């Protein structure tokens, strides 16, 4: 299937999901679905750097929060429609990603991961001390209950759901396109052996910067509508550890070498978390992540995708 065909197919699936949600007519479905879609974007974005290039980023929450806080900033300055905020969030987090890449990509392995974690702490401290966006008190972003498009009146949560659905499609199409392009080959050589990649003519530093920028930009996009979803944004929730942990765990559970991995991993883990939140407690979420990670490391080190591939054909 070529890229255009895939984009059309993905859009069709998204429309089907939307139609199903609309027919269901339950607001809770939008709330839960939004979170899962948001994690599809985040884990796909993480996978561009972590899965394709092999650089484990622990700073997902920072990129997500940059997107969210640029929305808060614009909201206070001059409210714009959310699609514009998504673009702004992408630009801000993309720049942060580029800067982080430039500063830290000479580090490898655990050292790179620690640097990304440190960056998240630094950015959180900055936001906590920035009064204009609420500082440590947090900021209220009140949205109307319904949104009017001419004669059409849409529930605000449905509107947010549609936006996140579109972002998820965009992220998946981008990831799949990269995977099958020259860029994808380059990323894979970086993951396998950077020295050999350079000697084959692969400009590794440039490719890594492309990966950190793209990955950061998608995380920022996922964060931009978040203040409108949550209504009240504080640094502790925007920079929460859950984002970093989940966006690593989801691709790991699904499989990191293909765009399908983060998608499947997010649907499995995200749904389990949503279910646990309603039936048991939201505090169980991290326990679920932990147990599933341990389980998958033992049973399927290459994720669900690896498990399926192993079953159907001889795999490396």
């Amino acid at each position, binding site marked *: 299937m070529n890229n255009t065909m895939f984009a059309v197919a993905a859009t069709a699936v998204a429309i089907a999901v939307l139609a199903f949600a609309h027919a269901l007519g339950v607001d809770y479905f939008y709330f839960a679905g939004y979170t899962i879609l948001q994690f599809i974007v985040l884990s796909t974005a993480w996978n561009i750097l972590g899965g394709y290039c092999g650089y484990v980023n622990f700073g997902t929450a920072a990129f997500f929060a940059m997107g969210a806080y640029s929305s808060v900033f614009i909201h206070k300055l001059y409210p714009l429609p959310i699609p514009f905020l998504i673009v702004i969030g992408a630009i801000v987090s993309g720049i942060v990603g580029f800067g982080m890449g430039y500063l830290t990509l000479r580090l490898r392995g655990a050292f790179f991961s620690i640097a990304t974690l440190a960056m998240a702490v630094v950015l959180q401290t900055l936001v906590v001390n920035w009064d204009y966006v609420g500082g440590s008190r947090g900021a209220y972003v009140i949205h109307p209950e319904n949104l009017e498009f001419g004669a059409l009146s849409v529930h605000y949560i449905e509107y947010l759901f549609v936006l996140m659905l579109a972002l998820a499609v965009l992220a998946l199409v981008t990831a799949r396109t990269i995977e099958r392009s020259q860029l994808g080959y380059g990323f*894979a050589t970086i993951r396998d052996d950077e020295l050999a990649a350079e*000697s084959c003519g692969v400009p590794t530093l440039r490719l890594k910067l492309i990966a950190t920028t793209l990955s950061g930009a998608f995380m920022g996009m996922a964060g931009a509508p978040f203040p409108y979803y949550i209504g009240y944004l504080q640094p502790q929730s925007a920079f929460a550890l859950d984002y970093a942990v989940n966006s690593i765990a989801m691709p790991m559970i699904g499989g990191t070498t293909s765009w399908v991995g983060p998608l499947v991993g997010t649907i499995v883990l995200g749904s389990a978390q949503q279910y646990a939140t309603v039936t048991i407690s939201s505090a169980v979420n991290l326990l679920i992540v932990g147990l599933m990670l341990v389980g998958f490391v033992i049973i399927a080190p290459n994720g669900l995708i690896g498990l399926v591939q192993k079953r159907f054909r001889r795999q*490396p």
Partner: protein
Amino acid sequence: MSALLHVDKISKHFGGFVALDGITLEVQPGERLGLIGPNGSGKSTLVNCICGTLQNESGSVQFDGRKMDGLSAHQRTHRGVARSFQLPRPFHSMTLADNLRVPMLYTVHTRTGPLHADNIDARCAELLQMVGLANKARQWPRDLTQVEMRKLELARAMAAEPKLLIADESMAGLSHSEIDDILALLIELNKAGITIILIEHIMSAVMSFSQRLAVLVSGKKIADGKPEDVVRDPEVVRAYIGQ
């Protein structure tokens, strides 16, 4: 005829250790040069400085009439320098064919403009044929034996269509017949017009391959000339066997 590679008084230190101490070396187009020296004499450091993996601190490296100082490894590969690694470093997650595709996509591509997918496939098959791995195109590097891994390493270097190929100990740990295999391959490549620097410990291989021999000892070049003269040079004998 002007030299293809001109290394001019390059030096490299690692802390207080002098790895290369003012090395000068010229390689003519189409030449087969053997580079020998005891362990730790700076052979691999010299290769790394020529290929851009390391940057020399003083002196300069000229290739094909242009300076290469300060260029990164991938830029030098684009100019036409290719190398194989002492320990094979294949891309583990890719099939053999895909391993060869990388230099074509990233190096040949930049010189000639976009290549057609069919041309890339054909060239991959041709290279694998040349090194005798045609029937393993769809396998992964982990399935290869040591000698096949070396051949893949050479094939991948060749996929970048280099003018100069530096083979860094491509024969270490191989049996006699396997060494002959690799030698025949290198000579064939040389006949096709590629200049080759062979770094090797196995003297029989170096002697039968090289048109010229250079010897490094403790970061200095102590001899450079016809192989049979060089191995009789008292200083070389002293460095290898001791007094």
